[in-house]
């Protein structure tokens, strides 16, 4: 797992990596050690959560470098974009990051498998179907998976919203006068 994090840290700009890379790895190893006690599902979720955080973080830092925004960027609700307030706007479900990683791995494996099968079959047979796996490059695959995952996430959220079980509905059903938690 640490090898994956070390790899993902290379997505960050070099200056950022120099300044925070060691600290982040130290924290990641401590958090990973703590999560080693959990079951397989918990460990997979943790890995996807951390990997997603690193990928989004790297993207955010690159965008800040490109746009020159310092302190006023509203790139993502995970960062300093927005006041501390309840907002009923669409948020990209973090669980989708894990799902995207799993789907991407499965698609890439399938494409490699199809290429191997295609290579082993005599090419006197014409291609079947409109999609020929050997024609897909990594960029097209990533794009197709990204579009599919975003669409799936939006559809999933729309279903949850239609069932009135989204976060927006949970927040609107909260009763602020129904007892107060003890302060710390």
């Amino acid at each position, binding site marked *: 797992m640490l090898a994956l994090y070390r790899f993902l840290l290379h997505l960050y700009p070099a200056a*950022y990596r120099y*300044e*925070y890379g*060691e*600290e*982040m*790895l*130290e*924290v*990641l190893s*401590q*958090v990973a050690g703590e999560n080693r006690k959990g079951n397989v599902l918990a460990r997979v979720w943790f890995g996807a*959560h*951390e990997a*997603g*955080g*690193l*990928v*989004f*973080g*790297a993207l*955010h*830092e690159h965008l800040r470098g490109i746009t020159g925004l*310092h*302190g*006023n960027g*509203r790139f993502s*609700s*995970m*960062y*300093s*974009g*927005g*006041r*501390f307030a309840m907002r009923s706007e669409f948020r990209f479900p973090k669980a989708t990051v894990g799902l995207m990683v799993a789907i991407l791995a499965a698609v890439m494996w399938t494409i490699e498998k199809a290429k191997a099968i295609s290579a082993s079959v005599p090419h006197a047979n014409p291609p079947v179907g409109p999609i020929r796996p050997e024609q897909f490059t990594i960029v097209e695959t990533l794009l197709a998976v990204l579009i599919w995952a975003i669409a799936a996430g939006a559809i999933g959220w729309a279903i949850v919203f239609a069932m009135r079980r989204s976060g927006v509905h949970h927040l609107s059903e909260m*009763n*602020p*006068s129904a007892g107060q938690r003890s302060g*710390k």
Partner: protein
Amino acid sequence: MEVSEPVLLILLSLAEQPRHGYAILQDTERMSEGRVRLSTGTLYGALARLLEEKWIERFKEQDHSRGKQAYRLTAAGRRNLQREVTRMKHLTRVAALRAARKET
């Protein structure tokens, strides 16, 4: 600098005492009763912004190593945190009053 929930939790964590990254993660999870679990990428993105704005500063502990860097609030950070807490107190007071009024 606008204050999001992760940033507010980090400021609250550092308001109590200087902490390094892992301790901040644990404290924010504890404060939010498990509701908020910051990823390392999110944490360090927020720490980088806070350092830029000089709301926090690096704190040299005795057993300081590059991988265990601690942070603490600056005077400006403490002032801005207080301002944010006052704003939220006012909001919750207004919200409670209006919710009570709606019920009666």
